[in-house]
């Protein structure tokens, strides 16, 4: 019922899709998998009319269609359930379902009809909430079901789910799967994007694998196998992809004792990272990884506990203090927290070291240029010149600019939060290589990642978090996907 052929799409600095195709049948759950940067999100946005492809065609029921906007896509029965839900918290469930298509009686909104019709749609997917409840009072899982009800209210025949379980509890996820199966039996076509291969195996009738903006293969129901999917996604053997050489750890560089974050003040976390060591932090979304890193870096100061960097007590109250203590953070949201998009590579790289390199408050231009040149060559930043505006670099090169900004300060401890999110496979590989190199130079590295393969491939040790606590620590020998996931979901206590 839905077919896409030869879709391409490029953004400044990145070719996100290089000719991707897929077909979707009625009453089918089609999983689309691939690493970050493989082009999944771009493909979905094109199918939902959020973005238009550079070339390629889309057919619905065998008819060639254009999807210039979300409205057109919805008119053809295609709806996208976003990763970040698009609901107005302050409006009630019924108002959200009919947002933009309000039923009107005598020029006023017909609230009674809204409530009645909303109730029908909610019942059809088994969501038992009063349609007059403000959406902000619902759990995330319930809000997602409201989104689905909203899509069904416009007679959606194709539902696209983008990482729907990333912020759901396991109970909520199970309920979502029930609803998805129910929709499938009604003939709705479902495109399901997920990183979680377990879910894919449980739910999908067919799997399309994307890699670097191209189709990397397709698996039928009987062929869906964890190892097969990973191999197709990565395109090479993992052992080759992550050439990790464990270092013999040096002295303790970071010592965290009873640290309590503002987000989870009831739990205290403690751990150590040695010089030359790469320690991974694993956990589901909402496990408190980012909060912990941001507390260590003083972004949102910790409410209790002690932090020692290189043996010196310092619980930073601001990033300024954290940097002075020898910490550096490559933050989660590269474009908003990592780089200044409108500024040049040179100015971004020198930003943190600017005061140190200044002469009586004046920018030392020669040193600034020297620093930028050094980082561009050391990190292999692909840019026409150090005056190029960072906005026009690819994600991977932007991330290298962030790394360069910190390496200029020679930090003792490097914190990284999802360092390879949204960058292509080649650049990921280079970031891994740089992390290895820094460890070799004696930097203590602590990195949080949602990609288990990355942690298993790169880390000497892993700390697993769940709801603000460290539920366990695994050495490289004990690190398996199952062991990490058990700790991350806290379904099994491992001593």
């Amino acid at each position, binding site marked *: 019922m839905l077919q896409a052929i030869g879709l391409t799409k490029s953004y400044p600095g990145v070719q996100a899709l290089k000719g991707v195709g897929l077909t979707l049948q009625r009453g089918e759950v089609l999983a689309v998998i691939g690493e970050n940067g493989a082009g999944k999100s771009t493909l979905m946005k094109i199918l939902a009319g959020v973005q238009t492809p550079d070339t390629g065609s889309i057919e619905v029921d065998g008819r060639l269609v254009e999807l210039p906007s979300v409205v057109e896509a919805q008119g053809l029965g295609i709806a996208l359930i976003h990763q970040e839900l698009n609901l107005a918290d302050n409006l009630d469930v019924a108002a959200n379902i009919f947002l933009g298509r309000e039923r009107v009686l005598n020029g006023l909104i017909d609230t009674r009809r809204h409530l009645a019709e909303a109730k029908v749609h909610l019942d059809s997917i088994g969501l038992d909430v009063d349609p007059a409840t403000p959406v902000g009072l619902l759990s995330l899982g319930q809000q997602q079901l409201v989104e689905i009800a909203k899509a069904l209210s416009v007679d959606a025949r194709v539902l696209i789910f983008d990482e729907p379980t990333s912020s759901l509890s396991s109970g909520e996820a199970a309920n979502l799967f029930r609803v998805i199966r129910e929709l499938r039996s009604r003939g709705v076509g479902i495109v399901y994007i997920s990183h979680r291969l377990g879910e894919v195996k449980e739910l999908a009738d067919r799997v399309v694998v994307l890699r670097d903006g191209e189709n990397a293969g397709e698996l039928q129901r009987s062929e869906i196998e964890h190892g097969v999917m990973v191999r197709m996604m990565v395109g090479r053997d993992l052992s080759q992809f992550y050439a990790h050489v464990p270092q013999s750890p040096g002295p303790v560089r970071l010592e965290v004792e009873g640290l309590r974050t503002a987000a989870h003040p009831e739990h205290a976390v403690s751990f150590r990272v040695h010089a030359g060591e790469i320690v991974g932090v694993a956990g589901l979304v909402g496990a408190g990884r980012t909060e912990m890193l941001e507390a260590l870096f003083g*972004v949102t100061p910790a409410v209790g506990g002690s932090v020692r960097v290189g043996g010196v007590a310092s619980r930073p109250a601001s990033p300024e203090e954290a940097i002075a203590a020898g910490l550096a953070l490559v933050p989660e949201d590269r474009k908003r*927290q990592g780089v*200044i998009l409108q500024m040049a590579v040179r100015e971004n790289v020198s930003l943190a070291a*600017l005061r140190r390199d*200044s002469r009586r408050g004046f920018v030392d231009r020669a040193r600034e240029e020297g620093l930028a040149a050094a980082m561009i060559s050391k990190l292999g930043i692909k840019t026409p010149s150090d005056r190029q505006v960072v906005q026009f670099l690819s994600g991977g090169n932007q991330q290298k600019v962030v790394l360069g900004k910190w390496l200029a300060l020679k930090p003792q401890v490097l914190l990284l939060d999802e360092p390879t999110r949204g960058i292509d496979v080649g650049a990921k590989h280079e970031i891994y290589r740089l992390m290895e190199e820094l460890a070799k130079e004696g930097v203590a590295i602590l990195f949080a990642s949602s990609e288990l393969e990355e942690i298993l491939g790169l880390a000497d040790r892993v700390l697993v978090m769940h709801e603000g606590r460290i539920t366990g620590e695994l050495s490289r020998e004990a690190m398996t996907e199952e062991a990490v996931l058990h700790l991350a979901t806290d379904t099994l206590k491992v001593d």
Partner: protein
Amino acid sequence: MRKILGISALLLVVCVVTAALSNSFLSAYNLENLIRRTALFGIISIGVAFVIVTGGIDLSVGSVVCLVGCGVPWLLTTHGWPVPLALMMAVVASVGIGLFHGLLITRLRLPPFVVTLCGLLLYRGITRGFTRDQTVGFGAEFKGLRLLSTGEIPIPFVSGFSIPAPWIFLLGVAIAAGVFLNRTVYGRHLLALGSNEQAARFSGINTGRMTMLAYVISSSLAGLGGLLFVLDVNSAQPVDFGNFYELYAIAAAVLGGCSLRGGEGTIVGVIVGAALMQVLRNMITLVTTHNNIEFAIIGAVILSGVVADELVRRRLRRA
């Protein structure tokens, strides 16, 4: 750079048109006066530009001009304060106002629009209160002090035309501001914070302190402007002295290439913007018989300038 060229071209066009329509435009008296006004408005516009570069706004400028412009002659004449003490008071008041705004904006996280809008009401109201709405002025006294604004610097070998003293102040302020913004670490931090506050903070920049600094610079230059304005015109009425000056200043900054989204702006551009505003006002006075449409003309010109800029920018982006 392209923006400065565009606005300079517009300034030139308006000058040529005005000169063609009015004989008195190019007279020495008119030009001197124009330069004097441009210098005065340039000073307060540069102040506002600092705030705009951080992505904020300062609506209190006109009222600070009123507070200092009325307060200084009031202290000197009504209360007989010595000159240094009165000037000190003016500095304390304008720096204090900037700190007050900055603290409310960075510590309490109040929106700059609201904080400075309340400032606009507050300082004018306070001035009207302590002066009892009476006109204040220097009369025939303080000639020496008034030279700061009314003085003229002769140009060697040129007779009949001299440089108005406020131009020296503008030059000093502009050079200091330009060097600060483009050459110092703090200036870079200010631009970084205006472009992306979060990334600036994550890079170890004390964004709160830099924001406060911007508001202090804005109200300090407004205070300096207020003093020079009143020294120039000799007397001030609290009810309308400095009225709408914040809007002239903001318009000059925006015309001069400051983005209201922050992170963008040059000092030279702001001065050209301020000059354009003054030439426009001058043109209306000289060419038309009804001054009452002044606002309409200024509004229309600014709007068309901004629209043209946006259209050119879009075309460039597509190309």
